[in-house]
């Protein structure tokens, strides 16, 4: 598969809503393309999207009372909220998906993106791997833009699969970054 741009970053915000502001700023360049927005696909692969906010939301609800709890955080309890936020920020209206898991989810996201591009459902697809901060480690993100041809980097998904499946997503991100930086 062909990759024509990628960005990686670490971030420290604890909750998904704040983290996405940092992440979106860090990967904005990948969306700076002249392309019809409905022809850009967006897929997030994450190990824990939604977890931190879900716990916080319920904690607050228990404290305040379920009848008068604040709804503000609720949309961010859903694992697909980060992908929706990116779509809004960059006005991307093509196919939008969120896969949960470890490196298997990242591989599946890349595979899906490649398929969407090959089958001309989209012209480009951006895959974003997200590991939100979890109390033991900070947040980590890697975004790649998949294109039809003439990419700067070429990824062999089969070879990648043997390297990263079944490692945790954090480790998978590191391996993939290493591969891309060597291209």
């Amino acid at each position, binding site marked *: 598969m062909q990759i024509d741009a990628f960005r990686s970053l670490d971030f420290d915000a604890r909750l998904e809503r704040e983290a996405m502001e940092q992440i979106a700023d860090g990967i904005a360049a990948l969306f700076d393309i002249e392309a019809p927005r409905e022809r850009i696909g967006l897929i997030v692969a994450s190990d824990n999207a939604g977890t931190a906010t879900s716990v916080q939301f319920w904690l607050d609800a228990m404290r*305040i009372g379920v009848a008068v709890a604040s*709804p503000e955080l609720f949309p961010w309890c859903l694992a697909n909220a980060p992908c929706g936020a990116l779509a809004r920020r960059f006005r991307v209206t093509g196919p939008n998906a969120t896969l949960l898991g470890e490196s298997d989810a990242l591989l599946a996201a890349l595979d899906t993106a490649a398929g969407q591009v090959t089958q001309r459902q989209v012209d480009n697809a951006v895959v974003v791997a997200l590991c939100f901060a979890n109390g033991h480690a900070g947040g980590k993100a890697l975004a790649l833009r998949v294109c039809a041809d003439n990419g700067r980097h070429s990824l062999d998904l089969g070879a990648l699969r043997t390297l990263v499946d079944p490692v945790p997503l954090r480790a998978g991100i590191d391996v993939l970054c290493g591969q891309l930086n060597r291209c």
Partner: protein
Amino acid sequence: MNATTMTGDILDFVTGELCAIRPSLPAGLPPTARYTADLNFDSLDLVELVARIEQRYGLKVPDADLQQFVSLDATLQYIVTHIER
């Protein structure tokens, strides 16, 4: 506490929460400020504001009453009316 003080306290509280929900709002919002037309509040902002009002004043605002929360003025009116009840 007299009525003027209470209304002033409520105005301060609601204004404070509006700015907490939308940090980009300017200070010194006029009481006539309309949430949607003037402040660009959306549905999510509004339900969050009402939730904070419920928490602060011990109210339970029914879904049907949400449509009354159109401006700072109208919000003050609602709170004062329902506290008195």
